[in-house]
């Protein structure tokens, strides 16, 4: 961090002590439903709560911690994509990829995790909150009673990941046509544009000017 000019109100800017205090306040509010926390110094704070305490945690964030400003609700699919970046050569044998699920900050046990961010307009800092979505029943409580703005975000998460929100009045599709099959942001949903047409990056490889013409000589020897 570069030093600030003396006339800037540094005291109003967030600090790690503020984030540590937020974690303590949340633990006091929801107890052992708070599974794991991470405060990265000078960066941000992550917390993971139990799935059945999702709404309770939201209410605690709003009422106890003063997180008045709603950011977003979304999800992460931690399964590594079986298609890689969609740049495979269709004529080559299929590539073996490691598809072990490995969660990010604050860990986790399930393939899908819900992720939300809320922030405080008075204290100028935010919290990233996660929860596991059980693999056998992709249902989480809706946040609409906590933050009204969660409505559209949950609709989007529902159509993109197939996660249900208990208590959401209207989980219609926002973007996709009604009756669309599959959930586009899941990692095992292929990006069709990369499958109907090969990624041009692997087709026309031209040698750089001045470099030995590797591609041309390869072709020559093959013939």
């Amino acid at each position, binding site marked *: 961090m570069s030093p600030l000019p003396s006339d800037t109100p540094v005291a109003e800017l*967030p600090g790690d002590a503020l984030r540590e205090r937020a974690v303590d306040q949340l633990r006091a509010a929801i107890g052992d439903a708070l599974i794991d926390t991470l405060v990265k110094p000078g960066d941000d704070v992550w917390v993971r709560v139990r799935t059945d305490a999702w709404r309770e945690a939201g209410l605690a964030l709003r009422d106890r911690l003063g997180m008045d400003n709603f950011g977003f609700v979304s999800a992460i699919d931690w399964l590594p994509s079986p298609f890689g970046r969609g740049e495979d050569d269709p004529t080559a044998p299929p590539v073996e990829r490691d598809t072990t699920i490995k969660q990010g900050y604050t860990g986790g046990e399930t393939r899908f995790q819900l992720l939300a961010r809320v922030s405080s307009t008075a204290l100028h800092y935010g919290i990233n909150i996660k929860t596991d979505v059980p693999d056998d029943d992709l249902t989480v409580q809706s946040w609409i009673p906590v933050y009204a703005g969660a409505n559209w975000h949950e609709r989007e998460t529902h159509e993109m990941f197939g996660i249900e929100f208990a208590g959401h009045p209207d989980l219609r599709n926002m973007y996709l046509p009604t009756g669309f099959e599959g959930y586009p942001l899941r990692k095992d949903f292929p990006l069709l544009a990369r499958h109907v047409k090969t990624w041009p990056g692997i087709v026309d490889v031209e040698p750089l000017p001045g470099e030995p013409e590797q591609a041309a000589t390869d072709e020559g020897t093959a013939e």
Partner: protein
Amino acid sequence: MSVETVSGSLGLGDRQKLAYIASQAADARLNVELETEGMTLNIGPQHPATHGTLRIICRLDGEQVVWAEPSAGYMHRGYEKLTEVRTFPQVTSLVNRIDWLGSFANEVPFILAAEKLMGIEAPPRAQHIRTILFELSRIANVSLFLGDLGVQMGAVTPVFMAFRDREYVLNLIEGATGGRFHPNFDRIGGLKDDLPKGWIDETRGVMRKLRNFCDEIETLLFGNEIFQARMRGIGVIPKDIGLQYGLSGANLRASGVDYDLRRDQHLPMAWDKVDWKVWTHPDGDSFARCWIRLMETRESTLIVDRLLDTIPSGAIMAKVPRIIKVPEGEAWVSTENPLGEMGYYVVSKGDLGPFRVKIRSASFNNISIVPWVLRGVLVPDIITILASLYFILGDIDR
């Protein structure tokens, strides 16, 4: 309790709101007495007031909206999925096209998130130029909004003035980056190029022109009686409702929340190097939202002026490897974009490309309040409220 006795102890803004509510209640009573039938009105997807293809379905009772629902998704391009098959430097060309009027501002938070994960910071000169270009894209974006505002109410002149003066700003952006709409100029670790010769002096001249434009708009539009009648006390969003829906930017500051991410967080940008103001308005109505944007455009020209005076010398690129691999981790960075808070939640697995990018765009949240704010308003007010909320379709649908 009559309206008069309540309003005696309240301020002017509250009295206007109460009078408005009372007139609406009277209309509703009349509609019940006359047994009016409801009808459904479809606005869009093609409508001048929607800046793209937003469709709004309203159920009306006489002249009053009893229920409204925006139907987005006509321009969904799936950027969150596309980022997963791109490398980190390639993503900027995608996110450029989210809010297409202020493209450069979209690149910055993504690049900052990638830099945060890599643990590098752009050199001071690059930070300064980034901030200048960021503010220029805000001016280009919001000046068009100010011009377009008149069109929504039948005044066609301001839009020509806006297009005339925005052209100067686009020329500046083109001069520095090579692209008028989609610069794709920001790089992880700095910028693609330094500023061209003579650019700084030219920018000072353009900023003076833009301040004149703001003055023109203020006298022509904001001082206009019709404009005030159509905007004052219409579409009032109270502070707590706005926060609940996650409004941001000028829409939130117009409801009296003093919150600006340029000031209220540590970012490796140059906003904290100069002195400037955050504008707020207590009313929360359509007029307040437009007025805040006018003042912010003017303030942006001053920020640019002051930043131009203090550009440090030095490199414009930090040392970064030629093939950029971003270490494993998660980062959230959001900035105060022309439309509001624009943020990226980037998850990296130590690969060439991101594992997942959640794009939190401002208009998505700003428009999700439409069902709430349109309930009970009159049909002609739909257009002015939508205009004052200010959205870009690409920013809703992503």
